[in-house]
């Protein structure tokens, strides 16, 4: 573990290991509460990416796990855009216009809006978390220079 992560700093490792699950739980709470309070998919995704970046800084990533992280981040970003656009196109296929949730469940407008906004928030959160993680891996994680 020489030179990787924060070396052997016990305090930083213990505090980070204790905090990272709570940060991720809070990120999920923010993403799920987007329509009731502050926050939403973008903020939740940002905080989720921040927790993963904290893990990468403190504990370090070896060569193989770095590759997996990069690939997973790219897949996450693309999947988020796909979820967002997919819900929008699903609304069009159901007879409405782009992102018109009420066409998804005819007769139950409130439920349709709730589920539609929820799905879009999840898509935005995935896309933002993946893109931020990818930016961090590409700028800070390279060992070539």
């Amino acid at each position: 573990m020489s030179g990787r992560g924060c070396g052997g700093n016990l305090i930083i490792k213990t505090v980070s290991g204790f905090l990272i699950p709570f940060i991720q739980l809070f990120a999920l709470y923010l993403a799920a509460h987007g329509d009731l309070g502050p926050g939403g998919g973008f903020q939740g995704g940002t905080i989720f990416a921040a927790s993963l970046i904290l893990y990468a800084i403190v504990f370090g990533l070896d060569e193989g796990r770095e590759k997996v992280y990069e690939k997973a981040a790219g897949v996450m970003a693309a999947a988020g855009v796909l979820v967002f656009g997919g819900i929008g196109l699903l609304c069009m296929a159901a007879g409405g216009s782009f992102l018109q949730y009420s066409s998804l469940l005819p007769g139950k407008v409130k439920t349709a809006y709730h589920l539609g906004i929820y799905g879009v928030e999840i898509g935005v959160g995935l896309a933002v978390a993946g893109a931020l993680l990818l930016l961090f891996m590409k700028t800070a994680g390279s060992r070539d220079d």
Partner: protein
Amino acid sequence: MFEAAALMIALAAALALRRAIAGPSIYDRILAVNVIGTKTVALLALIGFIYGRPHFLDIAITYALINFIATIAFLHFKEKGNLRI
């Protein structure tokens, strides 16, 4: 009451900002920025009470978590010279 406390915390943050500008070593500046972040958390909670909007507590928690991550990243950068992981 809450307004007076908020004003005093803003004053304390201003004093910490003075230390961040004048601080002789990099560690003084990092600690001053960390203190300003902590004051901001308390200020956000107080503003939430002043305006009667409990949602501000969520923002305060977010600010505390991000502040912690920023401090760790700063110190890591100072020690290693880059953010290479």
